[in-house]
């Protein structure tokens, strides 16, 4: 059985001056996940570890450094799924949790539910002793600047809002462990200047992620509102089940997104043999992966559109 971990750091028009940070950040995340796998840890532990690294890295739109919503807050969504038994946990619109992916895992393992949102989710995090933070701790200067510009544009009133088809810097990971188990995880701050309480595709099982131990795992990024309507991650895993290889499954699902909703995004797909598929229809996508006998392969794909 081949072990593997693949992560992405978002699919969008990543500016030139941020490319290096993206490659470094996804590489670190992949290495952290690989460390878990190589000492015999589970795919679930590996994807959580990898995503936590990117939540801590202000480069990405997840955890610290996320986009701000229209009121200037960071609100985070995350989810995790275990391919062994199709168990999943998800959280939406939380403001005071340092590692939403870990809270999502707690929802999966310690409640009867799949999804908790807002203050209810935060209360669970507190009760379980997870690492909390002040809402302001998640805000970085770069995003405050972006928010101010956005607000000015909105006030000026002239077609201020960015187009719907915005594609953000959501992060995600999929892994295959020594025992042949698959898992997927995703975390995001959503879209810039989103409405308060907006939840995107990331914490929606089937849209933002899917992991089926008998088939494969997929993690989405891109225009969440479109991804939710076509259940893009599930579509990719269904394509794997129908015999497509991971690359073709990713491309096929992105094609459905574009054809049915006009939306763009990126996908990472991992099958039971440890084969990896990466595809995007955005300008760029940051990724990294590690497979046995190889070092970390990382980069920013270009020209997916």
């Amino acid at each position: 059985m081949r072990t593997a971990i693949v992560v992405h750091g978002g699919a969008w028009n990543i500016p030139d001056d941020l490319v290096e940070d993206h490659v470094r950040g996804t590489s670190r995340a992949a290495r952290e996940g690989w460390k878990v796998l190589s000492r015999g840890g589970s795919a679930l532990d590996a994807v959580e570890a990898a995503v936590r690294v990117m939540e801590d890295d202000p480069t990405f739109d997840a955890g610290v450094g996320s986009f701000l919503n229209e009121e200037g807050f960071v609100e985070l969504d995350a989810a995790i799924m275990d391919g062994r038994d199709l168990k999943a946990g998800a959280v939406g619109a939380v403001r005071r949790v340092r590692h939403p992916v870990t809270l999502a895992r707690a929802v999966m393992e310690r409640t009867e539910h799949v999804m908790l949102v807002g203050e209810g989710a935060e209360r669970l995090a507190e009760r379980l002793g997870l690492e909390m933070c002040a809402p302001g701790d998640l805000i970085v200067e770069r995003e405050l600047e972006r928010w101010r510009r956005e607000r000015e544009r909105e006030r000026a009133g002239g077609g201020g809002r960015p187009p719907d088809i915005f594609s953000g810097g959501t992060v995600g990971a999929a892994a295959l462990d020594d025992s042949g188990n698959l898992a997927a995880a995703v975390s995001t701050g959503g879209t810039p200047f989103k409405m308060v309480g907006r939840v995107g595709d990331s914490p929606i099982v089937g849209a933002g992620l899917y992991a089926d131990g008998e088939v494969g795992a997929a993690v989405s990024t891109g225009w969440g509102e479109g991804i939710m309507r076509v259940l893009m991650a599930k579509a990719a895993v269904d394509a794997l089940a129908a015999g497509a290889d991971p690359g073709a499954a990713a491309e096929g699902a992105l094609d459905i997104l574009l054809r049915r909703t006009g939306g763009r995004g990126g996908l990472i797909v991992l099958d039971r043999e440890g084969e990896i598929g990466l595809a995007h229809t955005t300008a760029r996508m940051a990724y990294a992966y590690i497979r046995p006998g190889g070092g970390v392969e990382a980069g920013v794909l270009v020209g997916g559109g």
Partner: protein
Amino acid sequence: MRVVVVHGGVRISRPRPGGRSRDGEIVDKLMDVAERARRVLLAGSALDAVEEAVRIMEEDPTFNAGYGSALNLVGEVEVDASIMDGSTMRAGAVGAVRGVLHPVTLARAVMERTPHVLLVGEGAREFARKLGLGGDEDLVHESRVSARREALRGALGGGSAGGTMPARDLIGIYGVGETVGAVALDGEGRLAAATSTGGLTLKLPGRVGDSAVVGAGTYADGRAACSGTGVGEAAIVEAGAFRVVEAVGRGLHPRRAAEEVLDIIRRETGREFGFIVVDRSGRVGVAQMGYGLFWASATDEGVEGGIEGGG
């Protein structure tokens, strides 16, 4: 061919022998809802019809939606709803919202008046206030207060359920049921689906179930429209309604499509679920595994209703 199908949730436990049954009353209500929604179809769209059907049920405390919803762990009503227009594949949803009598209308507003699909919690409530769609309504009905009390007794031991039991079993005994939903096909061949619920009794605050998740409790595209009910956690991990529509797309009869997905849900999660489906040619599927799904349908030929399953 114009069709409306509605459901009023599943019975998740076997009816008690000799127990007072409201089954007939619920079916009658649903037939009335279906007929009223069909009349909307004469002049309006499938989307208008499913919204109207769900709104009627949200106002009726018989059902676990809107006014008279199940109470969560701390005794509050938090509702979930979603709506999807199959002709455009646009969707709107709200989750864990307090104080909104008609979450399905709020879901439609998310679809039509924001760039988003899902709004939750206080943000969704604030949006409702802004649009004059409520936000501060009292949705607690006395019947739910005693139901919650009984469920709590069961959870803590000493209730009629006997002893302390894991929340998993409590859900089965007290929790679910009476979620409402509707699917419709209009005269122009457009399909739509909507679902609304108060969720599980004793659920954690902030819990969002399948009724707010496009693809889980609600789905519609150009091929079919589907609304489901049951323990939402199972439908979310199985992408229930989406899979039913996909199966219709593969050529299955709506009823067969629903049964296929119910089989998968039962096999992989051990949960019971129910679906109503209508496809683009007006064929209807109602399928359920468990103790019965309350449903009714109205077409140009007439109205019917009943309890599907109920084994």
